[in-house]
């Protein structure tokens, strides 16, 4: 049975507020959960209750993270104010799923890796792009490690970054690729800028933007030129040995999205995408467009190429449900502001090579 899956959180809240205008903000989560399963209520009411329950739990996690952060010695984690990088807070989920987990006061091992790499991502955003943290206002960065058991994933939950340990067969610890940390943090940036809707072409753009900034951060970190073969790989450091032994070297390859060394190969041309596919499937097209553009534009992708993409991602004209075509056109407009005529031509050419037409907007 097809479900109505189109409503946003705001719309769902508005819907539930209409159903229960005086009580929805103070109803205990357990009550919301109980009545979301009460078959004597109609389907739409139960859906609203279920959605509100999920949102309540999400907000509870955020409040808890902030509460814990204020209870302990923040200075032990905080970057010194002098360099104006955001403070960090690390948590240990201890293989459970409750977020944020237990505060980690003395980061060592994997926690130190995450702390140091996250610090570098913040430095990349600050020095290369002039941005102060995910909100550009210096908001603290929160990371939780050891989420769940054998968890083959890393994610941004709307407030913080979360890393699993991998199952040792497919993936190893998910924070071992610097670009993955850059990828997840960039989801926070997108959330604070265009808030690209996480479905369809806008969802694929959302994913692509995280791949682009994650990979360019890794290039900047390692001082890799655009000609370095490793420069365009996403998630090269998280592939576990048994999967490497089968010839897989990365999750995705931005320059060669359909290559067989990719664990998750993607279409390379706009004409090849399935509009209903997962957002991670279709991100290969804008990924390749950026890789072609950066390779043609500069020896280093953290030069003009990333400036063009960043100007596009922070452009107020970028709509939350933007298409590939709209995004492409905005990159060309950004290139016109940032570089010479040749840069604009290279940008147009990159989109042309992946078959994305420029829109008239």
């Amino acid at each position, binding site marked *: 049975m097809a479900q109505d899956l189109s409503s946003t959180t705001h719309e769902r809240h508005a819907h539930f507020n209409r159903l229960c205008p005086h009580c929805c903000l103070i109803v205990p989560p357990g009550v919301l959960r109980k009545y979301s399963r009460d*078959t004597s209520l109609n389907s739409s009411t139960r859906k609203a209750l279920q959605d509100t329950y999920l949102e309540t739990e*999400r907000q509870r996690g955020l409040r808890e993270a902030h509460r814990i952060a204020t209870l302990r010695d923040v200075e032990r984690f905080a970057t010194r104010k002098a360099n104006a990088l955001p403070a960090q807070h690390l948590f240990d989920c201890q293989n459970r799923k409750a977020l944020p987990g237990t505060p980690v006061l003395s980061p060592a091992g994997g926690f130190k890796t995450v702390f140091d790499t996250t610090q570098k991502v913040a430095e990349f955003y600050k020095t290369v792009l002039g941005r102060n943290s995910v909100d550009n206002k210096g908001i603290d960065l929160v990371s939780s490690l050891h989420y769940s058991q054998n968890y*083959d*994933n890393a*994610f941004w939950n709307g407030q913080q970054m979360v890393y699993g340990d991998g199952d040792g067969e497919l993936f190893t610890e998910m924070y071992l690729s610097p670009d993955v940390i850059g990828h997840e943090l960039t989801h926070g940036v997108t959330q604070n800028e265009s808030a690209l809707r996480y479905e369809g072409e806008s969802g694929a753009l959302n994913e692509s933007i995280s791949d682009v900034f994650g990979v360019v951060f890794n290039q900047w970190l390692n001082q890799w030129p655009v000609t370095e073969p490793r420069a365009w790989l996403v998630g090269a450091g998280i592939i576990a040995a048994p999967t490497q032994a089968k010839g897989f070297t990365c999750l995705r390859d931005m320059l060669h999205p359909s290559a067989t060394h990719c664990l998750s190969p993607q279409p390379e041309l706009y004409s090849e995408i399935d509009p209903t596919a997962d957002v991670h499937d279709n991100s290969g097209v804008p990924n390749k467009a950026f890789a072609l553009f950066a390779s043609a534009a500069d020896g280093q992708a953290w030069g003009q190429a990333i400036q063009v993409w960043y100007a596009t991602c922070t452009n107020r004209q970028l709509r939350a449900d933007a298409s590939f075509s709209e995004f492409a056109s905005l990159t060309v407009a950004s290139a016109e502001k940032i570089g010479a005529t040749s840069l604009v031509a290279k940008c147009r050419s990159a989109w042309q090579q992946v078959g994305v037409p420029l829109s008239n907007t």
Partner: protein
Amino acid sequence: MVDRDANDVVKVRIERRGGLAGLHFSVEHDYLSLQPAQREAIASLSTTAASPSTSAGADRFHYRVRLTHADGSERTIEVPEPAMPESLESLTKASHPPPART
């Protein structure tokens, strides 16, 4: 909408999509072969109202649970990761060896 009873479910197919990797996994089980806790979770899902297709943030897993009833009819329930019962989540974890390179 009329909710179907989970009692006449004969087959359960669970697909996992999304995540940072964007890999797709699926597993299919006869309903009767499931553990009691897993059957309870199926019953709970089948009587719970539809969940949103996406959860907050990005790179979360997304599950699609397809129930096949004794009369051959099917019902698909979209389940975002935060709402997926752990007993069912574990079914997909056990089902994804590294893929063969093509």
